[in-house]
């Protein structure tokens, strides 16, 4: 029988991975974390008894090897991902498993590819199998039914930020991740082309929101892939608390951990303002002269009350695709190896998706 290891399965993202994998009936689960009681508690929540807890610390190589051994797929939901990079992937691949990471940016893929392990010829290592990065680079592909003059990406809302993700948010800066205020235009990144939008209304977002231009590496690759004339990528906040907290932290410098409480508090302030919700909005402008019609959608809108949990759903779907043999071997980003239409259809039926519109 298929065995799937969920590293960090007792966390916010991991718990949902465990839940959906159980629901999809893809195999037996091995739920790992440093705290065995927490992992065991997650397993007890599933009466089918298809999940067993295992104590594991990813910083202990021996420990990690034991966890991966015997798994067909290892899903990583532990972090922080800037630190983990390709470490877990290498061990999983060496143990003969496929690998799925709910996080991990281009930096992790680059790290793995810089010295590719031989197992990559037969196994797949899929990174960024979450919401952003992840769905943010995948779903807009549904709008590319013909050449596009412009593509706008707005992702954000009010969501709790865990301490682990806060560290990731603080450290995912710099050219490996993206360029603030930049736009993609005519095949290249144009820095400083966009200004923050303050107090604007956007379809799918509540009240007035603030949108910060940030051309992520993921969307820049998407733009190049699709050959769009212009791509604007905004991160949306419901108040200015988070951008303010991040700016203050970056101005101050010092270890990221010191600023975690401020970022977590800012996110809580956002939730207090609007209640939790998260929206992905993609809108395309077809190149001139393109026919219009119901088979040529211009907008895709997805909403969820919990962006972390939805990342777990994406990771679980990715595991399914892997086991079905639909993902070729090699190191890749989820956005570039999943089928957008399939994933959108699966998400539409998921209880964590409160709105899924394509028109």
């Amino acid at each position: 029988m298929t065995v799937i290891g969920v590293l960090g399965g007792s966390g916010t993202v991991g718990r949902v991975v465990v839940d959906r994998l159980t629901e999809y009936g893809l195999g037996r689960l091995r739920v790992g974390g440093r705290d065995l009681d927490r992992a065991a508690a997650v397993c007890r929540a599933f009466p089918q008894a298809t999940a067993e807890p295992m104590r594991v610390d990813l910083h202990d190589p021996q420990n990690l090897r034991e966890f991966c051994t015997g798994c067909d797929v290892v899903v990583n939901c532990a972090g922080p991902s800037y630190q983990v990079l390709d470490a877990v992937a290498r061990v999983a691949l060496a143990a003969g498993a496929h690998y799925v990471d709910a996080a991990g940016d281009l930096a992790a893929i680059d790290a793995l590819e810089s010295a590719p392990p031989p197992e990559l010829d037969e196994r797949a290592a899929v990174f960024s199998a979450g919401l952003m990065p992840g769905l943010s680079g995948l779903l807009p592909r549904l709008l590319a039914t013909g050449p596009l003059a412009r593509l706008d990406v707005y992702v954000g809302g009010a969501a709790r930020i865990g301490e682990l993700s806060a560290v990731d948010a603080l450290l995912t800066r710099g050219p490996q991740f993206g360029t603030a205020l930049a736009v993609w235009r005519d095949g290249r990144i144009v820095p400083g082309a966009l200004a923050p939008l303050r107090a604007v209304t956007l379809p799918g977002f509540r009240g007035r929101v603030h949108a910060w231009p940030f051309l992520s590496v993921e969307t820049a690759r998407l733009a190049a892939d699709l050959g769009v004339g212009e791509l604007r990528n905004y991160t949306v906040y419901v108040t200015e608390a988070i951008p303010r907290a991040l700016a203050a932290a970056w101005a101050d410098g010092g270890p990221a951990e010191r600023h975690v409480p401020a970022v977590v508090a800012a996110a809580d302030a956002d939730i207090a303002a609007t209640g939790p919700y998260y929206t992905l909005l993609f809108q395309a402008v077809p190149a001139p002269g393109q026919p219009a019609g119901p088979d040529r959608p211009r907008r895709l809108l997805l909403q969820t009350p919990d962006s972390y949990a939805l990342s777990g759903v994406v990771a679980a779907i990715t595991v399914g695709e892997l086991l079905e043999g639909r993902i070729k071997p090699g190191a890749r980003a989820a956005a570039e190896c999943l089928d957008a239409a399939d994933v959108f259809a699966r998400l539409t039926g998921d209880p964590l998706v409160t709105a899924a519109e394509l028109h």
Partner: protein
Amino acid sequence: MTPSSSSPDVTDSIEAELSRIWGELLDLDPAGIPPDTGFLRLGGDSVLAVRMSAMVRKRLAVELALSDVTVEITLDHLADLVRRRASGEGAARALPVEIERRPDPSASFPLMPLQQGYFVGQHDGWELSYDSAHFYGDVGLVGVDGDEAADALEDALTRLALHQPMLRARITPEGEQYVLPPDSPGAIPRPRVYDLREAAPDEVEAHLRAVRNEMRTTGPNPLDGPGLDIRLSLLPGDRGRLHTAMSLLTLDGWSATLLNRELLTLAADWNAVLAPLGVDFGDYVTSLGRLRDTEAYAADRDWWWERLDGAPAPPALPLHTDPRDVRPTTMGTREDRLAAERWTALRERCAAHGVTPSAAMVTAFGVVLARWAGHRRMLLNSLQLNRLPLHPDIHRVIGAFATTMLLPVELERGRTFTELAGDVQRTFTEHAAHNLVSGVEVSRELARRRGTTRPIGPVVFQSTLGMDAAMGERQAESAGPLGELVFDDFHHQLRTPQVALEVRFYEVREEMAIVFSLVEELFDADQVDAAFTDLLTLIGSLADGPGWDRVVELPAVGDPEGATGDLSLDRLPERGADQQEGPPADELEQRICELWEEILGVPVLDRATGFFSLGGDSLLAVRALARIAKEVGTAPSVREFLDAPTVAGLAAAVRARLEGSRR
């Protein structure tokens, strides 16, 4: 003498200077002004109070906060205040900008909010709008020197246009304004003269009717010529008529009075020279623009915004027809005068009851509206002619300074007129102390919040009582070769957009004029007559005395009651916006989105998004439609656009036009 500001000499000089200022303004002997009597009782009013703060600013270099200078202030209190402000103590809310002369007096500058409203109105932007927003008046002349009059008038108008730059103003199609240099062709308006000195009586009558009709219905338009049209009819028997039409886009009511005075002064005397002006309208508008970035402006805006959600509706006057469905060409008038002795008596009684005549009149108007509409809480729009006291010459400058102020009126039952007027005056003063944000801007925000494109304040109050005194010398009655003005033989007509009913109070020599201007098509004429009579009766009882202490009869209802099914001014039906949400459906909608993004600086992603909810205003709408017309070949009028001001709505309107023209 010590230079210390606390020395008795300097202290004395503050009192002495203030007495001199009051003496000049109130025409009193400075030495005899009692230090403990209020400005109002001494004959002052709110208009003079504004002028007083400008004089204090100039002569004592002390900035008084707008809210400080109330009509109740005494000379003692004022001296105290000046001393505190001079020492920088509690300098609460002075005007945070300085007026500066612009380096290039012919440079273009933006329209004031109310000018924008008129501008958009001329583009058929509002329901209840006209091809021109203007005031027309004609007055009889006797003892005219028929051979000299034409030259005298032309010469006077030339000299006046050199003195007052806004008489040379033009407005661009994009909604900016600029002043033509005196030597550019057409800059100086020329009068037109009709010589009917030999004409038969019926010919004279036909001529006057024709001129009046033409000037009432076709106002001067500063988009393509001067904003002023002056004509002189020379009639048999050394009589004549002076016809004046003024565009509200370039001249406000205060300017109209100034214009008449200065024109007649110059006509009366070839050698008369007007005191030079140290500032012009463009300078004023430009410094007001800087005001928008100040904290004081933000504080005023917050003050208004906080009150908006609780603001009442306009009076629920019963309507014949939806204002959207009428196309008036002129406004109807009801008017009367309060004779000199009764007007004097009214002024004295107002002072004795501690209210300004303007406050008493807006209260009286409110009472009449309450009885007519059947409820006591309502939103009025008041036209404000007070200019911000940025410069001591500002009250002598011609321009479109006027602004509006929304005034919620709440009349309690079981109170005397004295009490009601006191309440209204307090509300008025409190609102006027936040006048850095104009009523036009406040109305725009209110409309946005209520999600309506229907008029927000269609009932208007305007009073220029006290203005004559504020301007200094009184109106000349003799104008040299033009003869004498016969003020009892005065005909006038106002056309102002977005107004259903406007009441005006002003002084004509020793009398007070009371005028209703209204869109007749909307109302039942009998109801208008009855309301006007009610107003006259009430004012009469105030002039004669007994009206003050009587408990005022008012309806029991506060806010208008829910749907009765009948059409009334507070509840105009909205045209249903039935566009489906979604991304732009075709290239035209997409083009509109991109154009709006460019004009408004925000993303426009949905076809059901409203132009105004995105932050657009009517002036931007005019610009957006002009761009559409240029790019697509046609665009709807602003007024059609207001019916469905969304991306999809505009696209539908454009498509309908394109199809119409193809057919």
